[in-house]
C-alpha cells in the first residue's frame, strides 16, 4: 500500500510535467527543464489535493476512482500535447541552443548552494526526527484536519464544518496528506513529512529556475542560496505548516507572470499555469485568497493604465485559476465556519480598532523587528549587493520586478489590515504569526530583488545576463545589449 501511495503522489506531478514541459518546450536541456520540473511537482501536489476534495464531494471517500479519472483525462491531454509538439517540430533545436559551460564564479556559487542544501536537508531530517508529527500548528490544524477527512468517512462534511482553530482555512495541505494516508492505508507521519520536504525542495528549485531563466544562472544560484541561507526557512520547512506551500505558490504565480512579461511573444499557457498557481495559493490558506485579489487588481489596473488589457490573456489566466477558485468558493460557501477576524465584528468595535494609533505603532514595530530578525545578516548583505551592483538595464525584468513588488506591497498592507481589525489580542497574534507571514512573502521578495538588480555577468560584459540559458527564447533587446557583446556571446 505504501508503494501505491508513492505511485499516486508521483502520478499527478508526472502528468503535470508533460502538460507543462511539452507544449512550452520546457524539457531537459531547454534551460527551462528545472522550471518545468519544479512547477510540475508543486502544481501536481496541489492538483492531487483538489482531486481528493472533488472525490470527497462526489463519491464520499473513494479517492481511487476519482484520481483514476482525473489522471486519465490528464494523460489524454498530455498525449495530445506530445502529438502536437511533434507535429510542430523537434524540441531538440531549443535544447542545443543552451550553452552548458559554467564559469568559475558560478561553480563556486554552485558549491555554496550544494553545501547550504546539504545543511538544510540535515536540519530538516533532525527536526522531523525530533517532531515526527510536526510543530504545534501541524497537529493542531493541518494534520488534525487530514485525520478528520480520513477518519470521519461519510461524516467528513460535519467534521470539517466544526468551529475549530482556523477551521475556515482551505484544505490543500490536509487534502494532500489525507490522500496519501488513504492510499497508504495508514496514518504514517512520513506522509506529511515527505510533502513538507517536497514543497521546500520545489521552492528552492523554483527560485533557481525562474531567476536563471530571466536573469541568468548567477542570479538563480544566488536566489536559491539566499533562500537556503534564511534561518526561518531552515526551521519552518520541517514544521509541516502550510506557509512553505503558500510561499511556493506565490513565487510560482509571480515568477510565471514575470516569465510571461519577459517573453517577446505572448505565451498563453504560461498565464494559465500562473493562474493555476494563484488558485492553489487560495486553496492553501486565507492569505492566498488575499494574494489572488491583490494580484488580479494589480495586473488589471496595470493593463488598463497601459491600455493593453488583452481579454485573451485574462481568459487564459482565469482558466488556470478557475478549478482551485471553484473549490475554494464551494468550501467557503458550504462547509467552512466563519473566519473569526470578520465574524461577529461589531461596527463600533471595528472603528475603534481602526482609529487606535497604538495598534498601528505596535504593528509597525513588530514588522520592523521581524524584518531584522528574519533577514538578519543576510538582509544587510542583500542591501549591500543591491547597492554595489545597482539596478539591471533589462527593462523587462525591472518591469516584471515592479509588478511583483506592487503585489507584495498590497498583500503586506492586507496583512497589516487584518492585524488592525483582529478581535484577538494583537500582541499575542503578532508574536504567533508575523514570522510566518514574512516567510510566505520572503521568497517572492528575493525574486523581486534579483530580478531588479544587475547580475555580475551583465556588469562584466556590459550585456544582459550573458550566462542566461535559452537566450534565443527571450530575445536580447537591441537598445540595451551592444552588438559586440552579442557577438561575444554567440562565439562562446
Amino acid at each position, binding site marked *: 500500500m505504501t508503494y501505491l501511495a508513492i505511485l499516486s503522489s508521483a502520478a499527478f506531478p508526472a502528468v503535470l510535467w508533460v502538460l507543462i514541459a511539452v507544449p512550452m518546450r520546457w524539457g531537459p536541456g531547454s534551460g527551462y527543464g528545472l522550471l518545468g520540473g519544479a512547477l510540475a511537482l508543486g502544481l501536481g501536489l496541489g492538483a492531487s489535493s483538489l482531486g481528493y476534495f472533488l472525490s470527497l464531494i462526489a463519491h464520499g471517500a473513494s479517492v481511487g476512482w476519482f484520481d483514476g479519472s482525473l489522471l486519465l483525462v490528464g494523460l489524454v491531454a498530455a498525449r495530445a500535447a506530445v502529438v502536437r509538439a511533434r507535429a510542430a517540430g523537434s524540441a531538440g533545436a531549443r535544447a542545443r541552443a543552451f550553452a552548458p559551460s559554467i564559469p568559475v564564479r558560478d561553480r563556486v556559487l554552485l558549491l555554496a548552494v550544494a553545501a547550504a542544501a546539504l545543511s*538544510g536537508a540535515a*536540519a530538516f531530517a533532525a527536526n522531523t526526527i525530533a517532531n*515526527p*508529527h510536526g510543530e504545534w500548528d501541524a497537529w493542531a490544524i493541518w494534520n488534525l484536519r487530514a485525520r478528520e477527512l480520513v477518519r470521519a468517512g461519510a461524516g467528513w462534511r460535519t467534521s470539517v464544518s466544526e468551529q475549530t482553530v482556523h477551521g475556515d482555512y482551505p484544505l490543500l495541505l490536509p487534502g494532500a496528506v489525507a490522500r496519501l494516508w488513504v492510499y497508504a492505508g495508514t496514518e504514517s507521519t512520513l506522509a506529511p513529512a515527505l510533502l513538507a520536504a517536497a514543497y521546500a525542495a520545489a521552492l528552492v528549485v523554483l527560485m533557481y529556475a525562474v531567476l536563471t531563466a530571466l536573469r541568468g544562472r548567477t542570479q538563480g544560484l544566488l536566489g536559491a542560496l539566499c533562500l537556503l*541561507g534564511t534561518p526561518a526557512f531552515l526551521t519552518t520547512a520541517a514544521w509541516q505548516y502550510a506557509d512553505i506551500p503558500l510561499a511556493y505558490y506565490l513565487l510560482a504565480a509571480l515568477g510565471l507572470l514575470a516569465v510571461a512579461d519577459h517573453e517577446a511573444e505572448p505565451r498563453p499557457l504560461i498565464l494559465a499555469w500562473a493562474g493555476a498557481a494563484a488558485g492553489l495559493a487560495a486553496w492553501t490558506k486565507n492569505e492566498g485568497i488575499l494574494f489572488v485579489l491583490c494580484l488580479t487588481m494589480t495586473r488589471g489596473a496595470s493593463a488598463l493604465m497601459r491600455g493593453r488589457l488583452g481579454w485573451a490573456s485574462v481568459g487564459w489566466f482565469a482558466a488556470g485559476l478557475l478549478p482551485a477558485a471553484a473549490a475554494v468558493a464551494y468550501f467557503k460557501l458550504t462547509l467552512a465556519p466563519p473566519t473569526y477576524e470578520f465574524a461577529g465584528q461589531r461596527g463600533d468595535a471595528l472603528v475603534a480598532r481602526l482609529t487606535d494609533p497604538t495598534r498601528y505603532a505596535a504593528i509597525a514595530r513588530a514588522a520592523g523587528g521581524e524584518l531584522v530578525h528574519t533577514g538578519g545578516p543576510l538582509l544587510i548583505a542583500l542591501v549591500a549587493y543591491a547597492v554595489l551592483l545597482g539596478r539591471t538595464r533589462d527593462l523587462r525584468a525591472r518591469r516584471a520586478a515592479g509588478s511583483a513588488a506592487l503585489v507584495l506591497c498590497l498583500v503586506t498592507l492586507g496583512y497589516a489590515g487584518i492585524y488592525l481589525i483582529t478581535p484577538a489580542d494583537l500582541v499575542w497574534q503578532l508574536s504567533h504569526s508575523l514570522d510566518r507571514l514574512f516567510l510566505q512573502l520572503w521568497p517572492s521578495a528575493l525574486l523581486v530583488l534579483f530580478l531588479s538588480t544587475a547580475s555580475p555577468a551583465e556588469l*562584466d560584459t556590459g550585456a544582459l545576463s550573458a550566462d542566461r540559458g535559452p537566450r534565443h527564447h527571450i530575445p536580447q533587446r537591441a537598445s540595451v545589449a551592444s552588438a559586440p557583446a552579442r557577438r561575444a556571446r554567440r562565439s562562446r
Partner: protein
Amino acid sequence: MLSQSRRTAVALTAVVAAALWPALGVLVQLTTTSGWYLPHDDAVSAFERRYAGLREALRGVAVVGHLTTPGSTDAQTASLYLARYTLAPTRVTDDAAPALVIADGVPDRAHVPPRFAVRRDFGSGLLLLENLGERRSDVSRDTE
C-alpha cells in the same frame, strides 16, 4: 573608489558568507548533538500512546468534553489540542457539558468533581467521566 569587478566580488562574498552562516550553524549544532539522527520518543507520540485506550473507548462518539487540568495555561491548551488531534474525528469541546467528559491529570478518584461518575480509568490520571448532572462549564475548578 572600488572598481566594478571588486564591487562585484565584495557583494558576492557578502551574500555567500551571510547565506552560509546559518548553514554552518546547523552543521555545528548537529555535530555537537549526539544521536540526533536516531529515532526517539517525542511528546506527541507519547501522548497518543497514553490516549490509545481512550480513543478505542470513544470510537463512534461524536462529542466529548474536556476538563482542564491543573498547570500552566500553555500546558492546558496543549493538552486540549493534543486530545483533539489524537481523538479525531470525535469532537473535543473545551468544557464539561457533554455526556462524556475526559479528565486528564486527576491524581485520584477522590478528586473527581461531583455530578460526574468514572466510567473508565485508563491510569496515570486519565479518566473518562459520565456527566450525571446539569450542564456545568466551570467544573474545571473542581479538579484543581
